[in-house]
C-alpha cells in the first residue's frame, strides 16, 4: 500500500453502517455514469461500485447481465468509462470502486488499467473471476504500487481456512456474498444467513465485511449489517433505475436508509 490512506480505508473507520451501491456504467444511457455517481453521493451513499460491463458476466444474474448487454450496445468500453470519470474527483469524495470481469482488464493491460485508476482517483477493484491466489502471485504488487485495494468475495461455502487466507491478502474489506447464488437471484435472508453472518463475525477477521447479494430494501439492509460493517445493493438498484429512471435515485436511497 502507498503511505497515504486509501478512501476506502478511511470510510471503513467511520462509526456507522455503510451503504454501498452498484450500478452498471453506461446504463440506462451511455452518459449517465457521472450523474448517477453524484446523485448517489448527494443522497448519503457511502461507497460506489461502478460496474464495467462485460459480455459474459458469469457471477451475475439476469438483471445485471441485461444492463451490461445494454450498456455495451450503448457504446460503453473501458476507454469510454475512463474518459467519463476523468474529472470525477472534482465533485465526488466518497470511495469509488470499479467492479468488472478480468478479461477486459487483461486486454487493456493490467498495469495500464491500474495506472489509469490511480490517475482518476479510483480506490479499489472487485474482479469476481480473478482468483485470490492468482492475484497474490501475479498482480498484487502492481495493484499495491498504484494504491488500489482489491476486494475479494467469500460465500457460505468458503472454508474458514480460505477465509483466513483471503483476509491476510486483503487491505480493505471482504465482500461477503450472502448466499450461494448469482446476483439478484434471491431476496430476503433466512436462518442460514444469520448463522453464516454470525460465524464470520466470530472469526474476528482483520478486514471488516460488507455483505452483498440479496439486499434490496431497508429491512434486508438492517439484517445484513447486524454484524457486518455495511451492505452492497446492486440488482435492486439497477432494477429501480430500469423501472423508475435515474431521476428517482433519492427515493431509492432514502427508502434504504430511512
Amino acid at each position, binding site marked *: 500500500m502507498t503511505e497515504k490512506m486509501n478512501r476506502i480505508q478511511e470510510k471503513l473507520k467511520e462509526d456507522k453502517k455503510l451503504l454501498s451501491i452498484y450500478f452498471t456504467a453506461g446504463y440506462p444511457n451511455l452518459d449517465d455514469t457521472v450523474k448517477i455517481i453524484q446523485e448517489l453521493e448527494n443522497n448519503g451513499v457511502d461507497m460506489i461500485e461502478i460496474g464495467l460491463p462485460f459480455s459474459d*458476466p458469469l457471477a451475475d444474474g*439476469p438483471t445485471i447481465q441485461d444492463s451490461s448487454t445494454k450498456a455495451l450496445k450503448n457504446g460503453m468500453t473501458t476507454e469510454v468509462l475512463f474518459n467519463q470519470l476523468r474529472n470525477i474527483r472534482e465533485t465526488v469524495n466518497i470511495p469509488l470502486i470499479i467492479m468488472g470481469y478480468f*478479461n477486459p*482488464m487483461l486486454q487493456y493491460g493490467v498495469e495500464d488499467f491500474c495506472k489509469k485508476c490511480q490517475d482518476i482517483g479510483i480506490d479499489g477493484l472487485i474482479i469476481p473471476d480473478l482468483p485470490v491466489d*492468482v492475484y497474490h502471485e501475479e498482480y498484487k504488487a502492481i495493484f499495491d504500487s498504484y494504491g488500489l485495494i482489491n476486494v475479494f*468475495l467469500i460465500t457460505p461455502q468458503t472454508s474458514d481456512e*480460505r477465509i483466513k487466507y483471503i483476509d491476510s491478502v486483503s487491505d480493505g474489506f471482504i465482500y461477503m*456474498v450472502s448466499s450461494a*447464488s448469482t446476483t439478484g437471484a434471491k431476496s430476503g435472508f433466512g436462518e442460514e444467513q444469520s448463522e453464516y453472518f454470525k460465524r464470520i463475525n466470530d472469526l474476528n477477521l482483520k478486514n471488516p465485511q460488507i455483505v452483498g447479494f440479496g439486499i434490496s430494501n431497508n429491512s434486508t439492509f438492517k439484517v445484513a449489517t447486524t454484524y457486518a460493517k455495511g451492505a452492497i445493493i446492486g440488482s435492486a438498484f439497477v432494477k429501480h433505475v430500469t423501472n423508475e429512471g435515474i431521476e428517482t435515485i433519492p427515493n431509492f436511497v432514502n427508502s434504504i436508509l430511512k
Partner: protein
Amino acid sequence: MKIKVCGMKYQDNIEQVAALQPDYLGFIFYDKTPRHFDTEIPEISNDIKKTGVFVNEDLNTVIQKINEFNLQAVQLHGEEAPFYCNMLRTTTLLKKPIEVIKVFSVMDGFNFKVLNEYEDVCDYYLFDTKGKLPGGNGYAFDWSLLNDYPSTKPFFLSGGIGIDQINDIKKFKESEVSKYCYALDVNSKFELEPGLKNVGVLREFINKLSNNKEMQKYNVDERGYYGDFGGAFIPEMLYPNVEELRENYLKVMAEPKFKKEFDQLLKDYVGRPSPLYFAKRLSEKYNTKIYLKREDLNHTGAHKINNTIGQILMAKRLGKNRIIAETGAGQHGVATATVCALMGLECIVYMGEIDIARQAPNVARMKMLGAKVIPALSGSRTLKDATNEAIRDWINNPVNTHYIIGSAIGPHPYPDMVTRFQSVISEEIKWQLKEHEGRENPDYVAACIGGGSNAAGTYYHFLHEEDVKIIAVEAAGLGVDSGESAATSVLGKEGIIHGCKTLLMQTADGQITEPYSISAGLDYPGVGPMHAHLAKTGRAEFMSITDDEAMKAGLELCELEGIIPAIETSHALAIFKQKQFKPNDVIVMSLSGRGDKDLQNYIDYFKI
C-alpha cells in the same frame, strides 16, 4: 529411476506393457497369489529384464525356471538365507549370470542390521510394505524410514505405489537416501484386476516420472496450465465445487473399480472399441493412406458420450445427484441426457434459445430421455450463453450438482479431465494401427476443433511422439477474414473465457464475440487451453476450412465411402484438398460424429 512392473500374467497385457519399455517385468512363480504366472512369456524386447519372483522356493525349481523362461533377474520374497542368494549367483547350472534382488518388508520400523549378511550375496535390495501377503498388499510404507539406510547398495522401492503418489515420489527424490533408490516397483495400484495392468495409467505414470521435461510439455502441469494457457479463473462461488473436483479427479480415475466400470460401459453401452477403418477409395483419390477412427459409430452418434460416461461416474463418486450441462447443437446435451437416464439422475440442459429453434430433433431427444431443457435467454442466446447459464446454475446449486462440461474447456481440471476421458480414442488407435500397419504411430493425426474434445482425445497419446504430426482443423465459416468465422487460432487473442485462459475471439475491448460456422459444434469463440498451447508452440498445424469446403468434403465421403459425416467432421475431411500428403503417409483422422443430425443442413445446402 528405473521402473519395474510386477505381477504380469496375460500374454496381450504383457506385450502392451512391454511396449511402454519398463526396465523390468516381474512374473510371480508362487501359486498362492492370484497373479501366479503359469503361461508363456511372449517375445519382448531384450532391454526389459524378465524377473522371476519366488517365495521360499526350492533352489532347483528356481534354477529350472530361470533357464526355462530365460529370466535375467530373480526377486526373492520369502525368508531366503544369504547362502541361498549366493548359490544363485555362483551356480554353474545357469546359462547366464542372474541379478539377485532380495526383498525386505517394512512396516512401522525396520532393523537395517539384517541387511549386513546380504551385502555381498545380492545385487539389489527391495523394500516392500509388510502386509498379510508377500507383496501386492496395495499400500505404501513410510518412506522416511529409509533415511536411516546404512548401505550403499542400490534398492528397489515397492509397496502400494500408484499414480496418486507422483508428488510423494518427487518429494522422495529430493531426499538424501533417494540416490540409492535404483528403481520403483509397481503392481496392484495399476491393475484392472489381479494380474491385468491398466496400460493407459501406467503410460501416464511412466511419462510423469520421466526426467525429460521436454516430454511433458504438452500435458497439463500441477497448476492446471498448458504453457501459458489454462488455470481456473472462476468466481469464488465456484471455488469449492471446482476444488473438490480438482482434488479428486485423478484419484478417482486411477481407482481400478472406476476404470473397470468406465471401460465396461464404453464396451457394452457405447460400443467401443470404435473401428479404425482404412478408407480405401478416399485414400486412392488423394493418393495417400487414410484411416478413419469411427467415433460416429458410438451410441448417440459421436465422441461426446466417452466424456459423459466418464463424468457421470465421477459425479456419482462425488455424491452428486443433479446433473447440469450446456449444449450448442444438442449433441452433448443428448449424450448427457443419455447417461443421466442410464444412471437415474436428474438432468438439466441449458441451450441457447436460438439453438433450440434450430435443433428441434435434439431437443426432442433430450426430452424423451427425461432431461429438462432450459432456454438461455441472455446475450446472443447460443452456446456461449448456454455455458454462462449452466455456470450460473452451478453457482446457485453448489452442493448437490455436478456440471458436465462437454468440451476440453472450462476451469482446471475440466480440460484435463475431459481430455483423459476422450483419450480412449488415441489409446485404441495405437493398437488398432499396429494391427493394420504394424506400427502404433501414424505420420499424422487429424481432427476438427470447436472447443476441442474429440481432437484432444485423438492427439493425447501422440502428443509426445515426435514422429507423429498433428493437424487441427478449425471452421473458417464464410472465410477467415469475412467477419463470419470461428477460426480461433487465427482470429483469437489470449484472454479468459468460461474459467480458463486461452485463445478467444474478442473485441479490442475484451468483450467476447460471436463466432460463425455452418457447423453448430464448431462455432465456439474459444478453443481448449491445450489446443491454444499446441498452436502457440507450433506442435500442431492449424488449418481453416470454410463452410463450402466442408460441405463438399462431407458429400465426397458419402459418395466414396458410404459414410454420412457430421458437418464438424466434414471440416477435417476437407484438408485433403488443401494439403498434399505422400503416398506412404499414414493419416488417422477422427470421424467424430455422424451426419444424421445435420441432414436438414445438407438438404438445404445441396438442395437435395
